[in-house]
């Protein structure tokens, strides 16, 4: 399976989907007007990865900003990961937020309340 790497842009995050390492990273900002267009290939990749995932998948989400249109797409990604987890593979989501960023902390809590996967909130010093 191919590894997808997308460099960050002013409106879209850096993304790495690595099937060999079982590593998924989303970093930076996610504020595109059309978030579905941006996230569709990533969700398709996860569908494919989900058919034969590694025993353990790590997911690091370190976002500076994201808009409400991305919030739905990020949830779609988590839902795909939840399917993988329910089938018996280990999945760990790490949600990074800056120490004084209550909004990003609460956003992590929102996802944590919706999906059932081990979810760790990690505070970063500024």
């Amino acid at each position, binding site marked *: 399976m191919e590894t997808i790497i997308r460099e960050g842009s002013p409106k879209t995050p850096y993304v790495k989907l690595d099937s060999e390492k079982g590593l998924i990273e989303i970093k930076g900002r996610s504020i595109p007007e059309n978030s579905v267009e941006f996230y569709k290939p990533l969700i398709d990749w996860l569908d494919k990865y989900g058919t034969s995932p590694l025993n353990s998948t790590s997911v690091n989400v370190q976002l500076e900003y994201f808009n409400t249109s991305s919030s739905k797409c990020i949830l779609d990604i988590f839902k795909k990961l939840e399917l993988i987890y329910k089938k018996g593979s280990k999945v760990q989501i790490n949600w990074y937020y800056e120490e*004084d960023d209550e909004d990003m902390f609460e956003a992590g809590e*929102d996802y944590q309340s919706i999906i059932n996967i081990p979810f760790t909130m990690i505070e970063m010093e500024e």
Partner: protein
Amino acid sequence: MGFDIDKWYSQKMQGEVILRYMGEVSADKITEALDGIESSLNLKNEKNKTRKKVYNVFVECIQNLFHHVDTPPATASVDLVPKFGVIILARDSSFYRISTGNFVRLEKVSIIRDRIDQVNSLSDEELRSIYRDILGNEGITLKGGGGLGMLDIVRKTGNKLEYALYPHDDEYVFFSMDVYIS
């Protein structure tokens, strides 16, 4: 005749204006506006927390315009561009204000009014639980916003949305909204 947009605009220019824009709200214009506020010294000197909040809420406000605005009526004294909108980010003493304005067709007025009045009536706890319900259960709307924009703005700012609907002609009104970030 009709709504006096120039007068409205000058009233919204109070305080230290960081960014103002009137015209077509396209994806490129949004990128330019965001670059503009990021390089604004005013915000650079701000606490990280406040800077991020202002930026985030500004993104929601301008993309709300992008997803919902129409071509203005031919009777309005503005450029007849598609997706016409106005956005102003200003600092008034201890708070930031984001003002938006756009023409809307009369038939949309009750939807807008009901939506904002409903969001404004919610407690913090209700805001959080409704936000989570919509995020978790509803599919994305055709416009891509998912119905979360207004909720997100109120949740992040902790302040009610202030709005006014000014008559313009038989078919259109002018919708003005102010968002305050303390």
